[in-house]
């Protein structure tokens, strides 16, 4: 019969892994599972299992894996973005994608810009900002008794989610607040509907895929 870790062993293992130069929850979970599986499927005692694995997972190797993780995770998140973007253009999604584009463009041409700003852009903005804040809250909550962990996926997703927020701030909020009267800006958007249309598409794609990454790659690490 397979052995299982006792509560005390789980706590000891958790602290043991946390003492290693690991910053990210993904790596912590992966190493924890590896140590636990090795003990549960092996015949060595708990202490010997930890000592044997520590020879392989030594300080320098773990540090190097940890340091490379964000760059690698960013690449894999980019892959998800590219794949999802390609999915927009696959048959039969082409019809739905073109419909979305047609509807979005029609909205921008026919709806007053004020309504668009408050009822279309702002919900997207709230959604992307909420994802960022929610991820931040989860990060501060996820800790074992001696250490807090960040999420490599959340870090890698941040720059995509912050892109639409930054665009919105730079093109709408900041000019309206500090640099020029609000009305000419609205008129500019109404005369050049392609600009808000592109903004809206960036919002939509970044929010949708950010949510997808969050749901599949980040959520399970915390919940």
């Amino acid at each position, binding site marked *: 019969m397979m052995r299982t870790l006792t509560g005390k062993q789980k706590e000891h293992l958790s602290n043991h892994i946390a003492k290693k130069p690991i910053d990210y929850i993904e790596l912590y*979970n992966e190493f924890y*599972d590896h140590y636990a*599986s090795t003990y549960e*499927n092996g015949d060595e005692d708990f202490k010997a299992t930890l000592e044997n694995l520590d020879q392989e997972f030594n300080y320098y*190797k773990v540090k190097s*894996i940890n340091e490379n993780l964000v760059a690698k995770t960013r690449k894999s998140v980019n*892959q998800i973005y590219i*794949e999802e973007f390609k999915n927009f253009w696959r048959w039969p999604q082409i019809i739905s994608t073109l419909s979305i584009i047609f509807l979005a463009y029609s909205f921008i041409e026919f709806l007053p810009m004020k309504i668009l700003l408050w009822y279309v852009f702002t919900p997207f903005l709230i959604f992307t900002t909420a994802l960022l804040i929610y991820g931040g809250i989860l990060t501060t909550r996820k800790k074992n008794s001696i250490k807090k962990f960040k999420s490599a996926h959340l870090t890698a997703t941040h720059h995509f989610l912050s892109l639409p927020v930054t665009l919105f701030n730079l093109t709408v909020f900041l000019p309206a607040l500090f640099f020029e009267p609000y009305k000419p800006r609205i008129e500019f958007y109404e005369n050049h509907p392609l600009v808000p249309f592109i903004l809206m598409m960036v919002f939509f794609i970044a929010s949708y895929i950010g949510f997808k990454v969050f749901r599949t790659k980040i959520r*399970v690490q915390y919940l």
Partner: protein
Amino acid sequence: MHKEILYTCIMANQQLIKGSLSTIVLHLLQSSGEMYGYEITQKVKQLTSDEIKLTEGALYPTLHKLEAEGTLTTESRKVDGRVRKYYRLTEDGKKATAERMEELEAFLLNMQRVLGFNLKLG
């Protein structure tokens, strides 16, 4: 003297494994569908009757690199109260595996010709 020879053999073996580690991982994932890190090390041990031991310090960077390249995709699930990360091939990964296997087979056939040993591939 024996210890030195044994050490040299182990090191040479490790170098060979290091060079083909990603091919081993890709092939195992192709046959098993999805696997997690510990499972991969055990499968290699089992298939080679304990003769080849994948070092975890090399396995995990390889898995992360393949994931970053888009060859592998991952899914984390809760198992026995802990998070387990499963790796599986993407569509691009399936093509890459077939290419790597062909390359390895051609390489081994060439080595066979050059070194003159008798190797059966199949």
